[in-house]
């Protein structure tokens, strides 16, 4: 008998404020009009891109707190993570805030991870206001995981483009806004892919695993959701996920999509689509939240995936493990 991985929240924590900030390229993408703030340049007035990423997280946190109409002193704890080694963007950003901090690493699934943990803390009445945040930056991720920016190399068609963006939201036990009703905590899944330029294929099995657990544990089917969205599987990865799910007898229909696949326009030539923590975080905290608030979506399954690799492990020939956490967000007063 498979173990239950899904938590149902009795008190249904409310997302009372959300904020998204993106880079100029992302601002020209398909979600451009929904973001709260589009930066004029990738460096955001800072000397290095790492500092820019840090500033993006800080601004997202401040923005979310303002939109939630609470004071920074009301915040109890910050849950955040990013892609850089030792999650420096989040931890260094947290230096400037006067609340408790819990650093999380779920690679590109961090937004769902922080919301799942945050919702559990709020649901258990342990904290009143929890801020969840994550960010990624194209230039910092590229340097850490791939090649220098100015190197004249070609990217394979499966490669994805790390989203420059940060998202944050504030959870509270009561208030107006979409509610988190369930969370499925994912297992680490590895199907033996070792091509770092093909993250979609590496993470798709993790998404399948978590979605199967979720549908089984919660007794729902894909048709129960207005939108099922994965984070950054990209074009190839989401096609693989559809195939994998079909093999398991579950059909993902038109209500399924992938943030990375939708993120950029065709002219932006990002090959397989967007990726990175910021990819799912900015789409959730802009487009999806807006649609949940105005009632276009009633029930959304948000399931971003993360590739838990490091350059050291990859260079030693290890395969890429993936993880996927899923949360269910419902609109209106529940």
């Amino acid at each position, binding site marked *: 008998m498979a173990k239950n991985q899904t938590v149902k929240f009795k008190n249904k924590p409310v997302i009372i404020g959300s904020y998204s900030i993106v880079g100029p390229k992302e601002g020209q993408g398909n979600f451009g009009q929904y973001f709260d703030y589009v930066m004029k340049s990738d460096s955001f007035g800072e000397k290095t891109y790492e500092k820019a990423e840090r500033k993006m997280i800080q601004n997202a946190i401040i923005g979310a707190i303002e939109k939630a109409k609470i004071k920074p002193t009301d915040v109890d704890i910050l849950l955040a993570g990013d892609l850089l080694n030792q999650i420096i963007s989040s931890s260094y950003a947290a230096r400037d805030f006067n609340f408790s901090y819990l650093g999380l690493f779920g690679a590109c699934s961090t937004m769902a991870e922080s919301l799942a943990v945050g919702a559990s803390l709020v649901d258990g009445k342990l904290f009143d206001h929890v801020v969840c945040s994550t960010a990624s930056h194209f230039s910092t991720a590229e340097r850490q995981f791939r090649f220098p920016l100015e190197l*004249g190399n070609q990217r394979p068609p499966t490669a994805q483009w790390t989203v420059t963006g940060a998202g944050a939201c504030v959870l509270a036990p009561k208030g107006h806004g979409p509610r988190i009703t369930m969370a499925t905590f994912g297992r680490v899944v590895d199907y033996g892919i070792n091509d770092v330029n093909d993250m979609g294929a590496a993470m798709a099995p993790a998404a399948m695993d978590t979605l199967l657990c979720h549908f089984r544990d919660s007794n729902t089917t894909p048709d129960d959701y207005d939108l099922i969205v994965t984070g950054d599987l990209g074009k190839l990865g989401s096609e693989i996920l559809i195939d994998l799910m079909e093999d398991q007898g579950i059909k993902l229909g038109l209500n399924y999509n992938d943030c990375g696949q939708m993120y950029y326009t065709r002219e932006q030539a990002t090959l397989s689509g967007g990726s990175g923590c910021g990819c799912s975080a900015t789409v959730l905290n802009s487009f999806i939240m807006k649609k949940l608030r105005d009632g276009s979506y009633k029930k959304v399954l948000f399931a971003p995936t993360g590739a838990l690799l490091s350059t050291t492990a990859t260079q030693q020939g290890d395969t890429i493990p993936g993880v996927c956490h899923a949360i269910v967000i419902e609109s209106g007063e529940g």
Partner: protein
Amino acid sequence: MDEKKRNEAYNKYVKAKIPKTRPWPSLFNSFWIGGLICCLGQGINDLILLWFPNMAEQTAWAYTLIVLIFLASFLTGIGVYDRIGKFAGGGTIVPITGFSNSITSPALEFKHEGIIYGLCVKMFTIAGPVIVVGIVSSILVGLVYLFI
């Protein structure tokens, strides 16, 4: 065992699913841009010999290389070379300009980590293997010459 089989099957499935790069357009682009760079080199060489008729041909080669390396480095610095490289692929990697680009680009990237530990150490992260292969093969060739 079961897991191994599953992974093999999955890898096989993914391999079949991956969109293929079309080799002919990429080959064509790298051929003509690579050729263009070589023509440029030859042109620079001819010009040097035209302006300095007394220069030895080998010295002119050295100056040609210096000019090409400078040009590639400069284009890398102003953010143009990577765009050409994205289009031309091997055509811009194989000539000496590619070597110049592979040293300049990490130097730019890591300069914020300090002159010595950033710039100087990381400068050769990409070009390093090429240099090692060059030195090792020259040792081998030297040994062969020693014994014949």
